[in-house]
């Protein structure tokens, strides 16, 4: 190979600093400037590189450490609920989870009134509130999120998709405090004008505002799931003579099913834990009822509203950390399920992780 010879000769002349004859034009080429020998020698890597590698590995543990610390330090503050006699004078787990006969009430009841002469820590009104708001949010969020994803991935032309997708994701960029503000100041008034509900702030208003927060979550993951369906599935269906809508409903939708389920699970986790929206737009009255037009108080909003005014280490403080532990465990399970489904889907469809 003449080219290789030339390269070798060139390298040699570089090293020796001599001029040489160009084989093509027969002219003398001036010698290249002498190169410092030091730069040609491969230096051993500095010692701090090894140390940096160790640091990187240690830092990678931060995420695991964070999850463990979050659980440990939230649960630690809730622990006196089980162990402290001082706290037991005011509240026990049994008192929180079962109906109690309170003075002034006709029958045993679940009541959340932590700041009264006799503090009452009945959990069920808060759980009912959380469930109601979440149900409303899912009722609006799931069809809108999945439907929008279906349109964008199946029907929209490419140009349109490129505009619509980032626009919907813009909704995800709206801070939850702004959605809460919108629910409280704008939507609540509109809905009271239209439906004439008794309480201005209620589970419907909060749930609807909450659905705006989970729509982008469900949309993004569902859209990804639709996109991950192998083309061969669609082609096979069309080759069998199925119409577009038949292909979508009977082939694409079932194949994307686990991904959509994962998106719904992550949306659910977000809805259960979301704080600012419900804190601002739900009315925060701990009423145990099935009516969606009633004002509600959720677990997360209770923590946010009450923690600032409690005595450190007191019974109320302990109970609020207990609520936090419950929220952490609930969302942990929901998210874990969602993640497990996503991974299973990716493996089944052969998508690289």
């Amino acid at each position, binding site marked *: 190979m003449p080219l290789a010879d030339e390269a070798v000769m060139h390298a040699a002349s570089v090293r020796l600093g001599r001029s040489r004859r160009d084989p093509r034009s027969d002219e003398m080429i001036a010698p290249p400037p002498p190169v410092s020998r030091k730069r040609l020698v491969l230096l051993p890597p500095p010692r701090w590189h090894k140390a940096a590698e160790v640091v990187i590995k240690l*830092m990678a543990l931060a995420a695991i450490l964070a*999850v463990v610390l979050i659980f440990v330090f939230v649960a630690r503050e809730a622990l006196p609920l089980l162990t402290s006699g001082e706290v037991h004078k005011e509240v026990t787990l049994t008192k929180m989870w079962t109906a109690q006969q309170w003075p002034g009430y006709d029958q045993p009841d679940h009541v959340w009134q932590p700041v009264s002469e006799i503090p009452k820590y009945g959990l069920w009104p808060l759980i009912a509130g959380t469930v109601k708001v979440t149900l409303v949010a899912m009722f609006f969020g799931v069809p809108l999120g999945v439907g929008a994803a279906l349109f964008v991935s199946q029907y929209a032309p490419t140009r349109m998709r490129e505009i619509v997708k980032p626009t919907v994701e813009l909704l995800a960029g709206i801070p939850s405090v702004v959605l809460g503000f919108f629910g409280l100041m704008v939507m609540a008034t509109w809905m009271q004008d239209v439906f004439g509900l008794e309480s201005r702030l209620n589970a419907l208003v909060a749930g609807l505002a909450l659905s705006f927060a989970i729509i982008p979550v469900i949309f993004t993951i569902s859209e990804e799931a639709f996109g991950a369906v192998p083309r061969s599935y669609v082609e096979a269906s069309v080759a069998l003579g199925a119409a577009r809508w038949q292909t979508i409903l009977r082939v694409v939708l079932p194949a994307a099913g686990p991904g959509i389920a994962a998106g719904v699970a992550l949306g659910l986790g977000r809805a259960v834990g979301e*704080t600012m929206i419900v804190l601002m737009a739900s009315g925060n009255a701990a009423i145990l009822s099935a009516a969606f037009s009633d004002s509600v108080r959720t677990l997360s909003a209770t923590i946010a509203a009450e923690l600032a005014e409690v005595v450190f280490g007191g019974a109320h403080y302990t109970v609020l950390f207990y609520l936090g532990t419950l929220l952490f465990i609930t969302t942990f399970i929901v998210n874990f399920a969602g993640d497990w489904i996503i991974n299973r889907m990716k493996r089944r469809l052969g998508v690289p992780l």
Partner: protein
Amino acid sequence: MTANAAPAQGAPPSRFARAGRNKVGDIALTVASGAAILMVLLILAVILGDVVLHGAPRLSLKFFFTAPQQGMTEGGIFPALIGTLAMVLLMTVAVVPVGVATAIYLREYAPPASLLTRGVRIAVANLAGVPSIVFGLFGLGFFVQFVGGGLDRVFHAGARVWGQPALLWASLTMAVLTLPVVIVATEEALRAVPRELREASLALGATKFQTVLYVVLPQAVPGILTGTILAVSRGAGEVAPILFTGVAYFLPNLPRSLHDQFMHLGNHIYVLSTQSPDVDATRPLLYGTVLALLLLTFVLNLSAVVVRAKMRRRFAGGAQ
């Protein structure tokens, strides 16, 4: 698979043959899913429209550069703006090195199937799903009481200096919350760097770390930038994690040290809209603040989208 296949087997083949029904079905599905996307876009338009319509007349240089006056009915948002920036800056300093290091470890060093790698991945996914109010509880229990209280016991003989809600603790709490954002974005960027670049570097005799430091990381800078921007946007808008770890409703002075409290745009919106004695008097200031926060997060998000698009174009046709 068998469960999915069952109804298809039962369907008579004649259904596929009716052209008229196919058209109706397609129209119905298009209209239904089209209505969903229109509804979502409408929601976005109504929210933005309302905020811009009511908030825009309020925005002025004076609004950004004066403190609230007359019981929050006059003046501007200067201290909240400065507080937000200070918190976000500290958060970035804390979260970016850790997030980038984690992503490097996951992508470049860790064996993909090892227990540790899977553990880190599970932790990152779950960290992203922990409710923001739980981060607030964690910040109070860990940073404020455990770390801060501990520092006071050792260095200040029990006097309360660090063991109370402060700018530093709020920033660190927010850093933990935004950690998954930085990790995911950096990992995506590292994944996009072509394998050939790494191989070329290794073939030249560079060590693994030299390859990562001088070849892979420079290519991943846009991705790291995207993650940082998204984290900043998230940190500027979240309120629940800082409620008990450092934010204050109103302060006469700007924060001067790491253990001072601070004002925050998101918290400002929360307090103005829930605890105002005269809603109509604070409404203009409130709308102005909402628009300012929305502008801040949208500009950040948009720039993240632009940086990411540039990065994708650069690596178009690259690995994977």
